[in-house]
């Protein structure tokens, strides 16, 4: 790309590196934010966008590197520091106090007070309503935040950020929960802020949105900046190329083998949502021996919830689950594992690993029962052999299995979680976003392993929101949208367009009803 003019830079990140236990989220990244412009940031899941924003918002401190504002080096040690420097953020996950009113949420930490007489609730509600009206939100400022639907909660977050009078406003996927009309309003507000000289940082996966609203664009990939340009100079193809990189992903070649008989089937799995409707909406699906079934869907499509139902994690789901023709009873994860199911959860840190334990202990924790002598004594030698086997089979890079599991990279941690699941000897393996937050090399390893396991006769169900991944890895592709299974198709008959349009299906019908 041509060198673009430096414009009116308000904030600059120089050489920022951020390491978490297990993964380096940002590697020597530079970023310039310009006044009175929409600075767009794109990248795949786990590319490091959110980490970068959390650093700017003072939520995280960089491991290495500097932050400069208006030509001066600054230190953002806390969110309060960032606010003092005029930085506001709308987080991807909602950060509202559900038990407080909308007005109280908007004015949290800077309540309008009347001296000793405490908080002036009336003034707060009035001022909050002003901001909300500007967003045409149709929300009354004295309702409780938790009583609002997600889309309106999102608007409250935006109103709070706008009310801060910020010089830099970060919006992390602000439209993910908004309707088309609400998005239009938001864009009008953004244009208004821009005119007043605010630097907007805009993160989104929706490329057409970025093209519509962005001025400058920065692309992140695996924690590094891979592209920087003015939006008027580029097209969506350029974005995709910078995001994915010229090196095509190393997907394991298909091992041609015919899948066997059906080993796993669900019938009419339903999981009601607390706010009404279904998180999983009458899903019936079957997998055959040696088959990889990829479930594609956007965030909130109900893939994780479906897996959790299958593992018996939800008390109140309905429907039937069969393994090798036998219906599984009860709602008990321990029994489900014994009956041949195993899940690799999406959130490795919260649900996959025990961070305080060693690599070896993490691998064997779910299958200790296999190494028993006399019914209670763990045969350490047999356990050690099994652990060594798993490390070899999955090519886990572990110098010493007795080291803490957190000393490894994210990709190797993921392999440990996979190894743990495999050591229970499953017939059906469920993998929820198995490539999330791991680097390219580890991804390729994981994909190869999935292929090999399918070749050995394991039935695999995996979920992903990566189109390329689902097209390349699956024998059959299922698409979920808004809790419903909208399409199941053989890979040979699937096209990308088909899958994408199917993934929006559930929302269309919903909006028609609404």
């Amino acid at each position, binding site marked *: 790309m041509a060198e673009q003019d430096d414009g009116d830079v308000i904030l600059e990140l120089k050489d920022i*590196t951020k*390491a*978490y*236990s297990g993964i*380096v989220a940002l*590697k020597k990244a530079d970023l310039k934010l310009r006044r009175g412009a929409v600075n767009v940031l794109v990248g795949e899941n786990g590319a490091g966008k959110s980490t970068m924003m959390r650093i700017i918002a003072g939520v995280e401190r960089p*491991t*290495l590197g500097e932050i400069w504002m208006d030509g001066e080096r600054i230190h953002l040690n806390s969110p309060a520091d960032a606010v003092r420097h005029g930085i506001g953020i709308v987080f991807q996950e909602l950060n509202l106090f559900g038990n407080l009113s909308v007005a109280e949420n908007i004015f949290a930490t800077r309540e309008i007070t009347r001296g000793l007489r405490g908080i002036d609730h009336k003034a707060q509600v009035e001022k909050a309503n002003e901001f909300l009206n500007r967003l045409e939100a149709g929300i009354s400022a004295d309702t409780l935040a938790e009583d609002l639907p997600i889309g309106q909660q999102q608007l409250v977050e935006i109103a709070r950020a706008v009310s801060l009078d910020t010089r830099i406003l970060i919006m992390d996927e602000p439209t993910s929960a908004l309707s088309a009309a609400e998005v239009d309003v938001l864009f009008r507000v953004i244009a208004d802020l821009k005119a007043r000289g605010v630097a907007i940082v805009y993160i989104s996966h929706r490329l057409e949105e970025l093209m519509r609203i962005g001025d400058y664009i920065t692309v992140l990939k695996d924690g590094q900046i891979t592209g920087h340009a003015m939006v008027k100079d580029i097209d969506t193809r350029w974005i995709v190329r910078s995001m994915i990189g010229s090196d095509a992903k190393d997907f394991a070649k298909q091992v041609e083998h015919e899948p066997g008989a059906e080993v796993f089937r669900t019938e009419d799995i339903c999981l009601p949502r607390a706010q009404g409707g279904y998180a999983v909406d009458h899903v019936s699906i079957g997998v055959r021996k040696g088959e990889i079934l990829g479930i594609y869907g956007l965030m909130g499509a109900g893939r994780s919830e479906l897996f959790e139902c299958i*593992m018996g*994690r939800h008390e109140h789901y309905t429907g039937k689950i069969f393994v090798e023709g036998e219906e599984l009873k009860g709602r008990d*994860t*321990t029994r*489900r*594992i*014994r009956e041949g199911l195993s*899940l690799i*959860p999406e959130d490795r840190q*919260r*649900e*996959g*690993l*025990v*961070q*305080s*334990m060693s690599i070896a*202990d993490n691998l064997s*924790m*779910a299958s*200790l*029962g296999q190494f*028993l002598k006399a019914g*209670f*004594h*763990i045969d*350490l030698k047999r356990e050690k052999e099994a652990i060594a086997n798993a490390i070899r089979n999955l090519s886990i890079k572990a110098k*010493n299995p007795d*080291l803490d599991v*957190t*000393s490894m*990279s994210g990709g190797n941690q993921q392999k440990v979680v996979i190894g*743990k699941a495999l050591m*229970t000897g499953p017939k059906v393996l469920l993998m929820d976003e198995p490539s999330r937050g791991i680097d390219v090399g580890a991804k390729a390893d994981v994909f190869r392993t999935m292929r090999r396991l399918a070749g050995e006769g394991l039935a695999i169900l995996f979920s992903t929101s990566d189109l390329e991944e689902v097209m390349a890895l699956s024998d059959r592709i299922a698409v979920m949208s808004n809790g419903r299974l909208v399409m199941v198709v053989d890979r040979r008959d699937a096209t990308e367009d088909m899958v994408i349009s199917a993934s929006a299906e559930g929302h269309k019908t919903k909006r028609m009803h609404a």
Partner: protein
Amino acid sequence: MTTATHTAATGNHLSTGAALLTLMKLRTFIALFAVIIFFSIFAPNFLSTANMILMSKHATQNAFLAIGMTFVIITGGIDLSVGSIVGLCGMIAGGLIMYGVALPLGYTVYFNIVEVAVIVMVVGILIGAVNGLLITRLNVAPFIATLGTLYVARGMALLYSDGQTLPNLTGREDLGNQGFSYLGSGSILGLPVSVWILIVVALGAAYFARFVPLGRHIFAVGGNERASRMSGIRVNRVKMFVYMFSGFCAAIVGLVISSELMASHPATGTNLELNAIAAAVLGGTSMSGGRGTIGGTIIGAFVIGILSDGLVMMGVSSFWQMVIKGLVIIVAVVVDQAQRRLQQRVTLMQMAKAG
């Protein structure tokens, strides 16, 4: 040790950090040697055999409770009720020996000492089970659930004799319940019986933590409860077990103390739960769960025991003793936190450098 050699290669700055880490990891040992050396210089007769035996008896009481407490803390919980269980179990032991169990129609059943011990231990386990049920089935926070049983058990101990001490638990020859004193005053090969029991319980607990699936699961549950559930570990069963085991350990202490004094006093064991927590933490058990060892806890219990006895021998006022004990505990936790932060920094810096 591997961390030390590994980091030494990456640079001077990191290697000093690693050396410091090693020192911090050995802090309980260092503390134990420090108190022993200190008191053998400043406290007369500290190293005499008689004193050693006396001190080990004292430390043993803390150690029993601390072993049970360690498992509880590793699961991420806390058991405040153990001191009260000690008191209640002591009273029940005394009552069974002195009065037996009165049946209707005027009969009274007396048990021999072994039966008494078994009954008392079952009572301890049952109180632990109540804690466990409150925490797992009724979702009461461990702190509150065991605070409740702390009061209930202590109240019951006081009610049992209307606050009176049950003296002279020698038993009667015609009832066949003599010999209670053996537990507290007997010795085998020069070591007090209670110390032998401690050795058996400690080895059993250490074996359990390493060689039995339920024991391993204690660490998993404390490290990450959600991940444990997802891996098919029956979390509630693990929690039930640790509180029952803690109750069992408390019952043993109740028996040992009553036997030593040959009397049961309902206030026995007051505040012992705090000593147990302190010993566990001093021994490297992390209050946030997931980490801890039986060996470390035993050393921690001995540090606290030796510290209090040594200060008494030096004639330090009991008020100052409390101040010093408190400071030692605080320093232990501060060092623990510093170690964790340092460890994290060292690994993160390594990862950032390696890219």
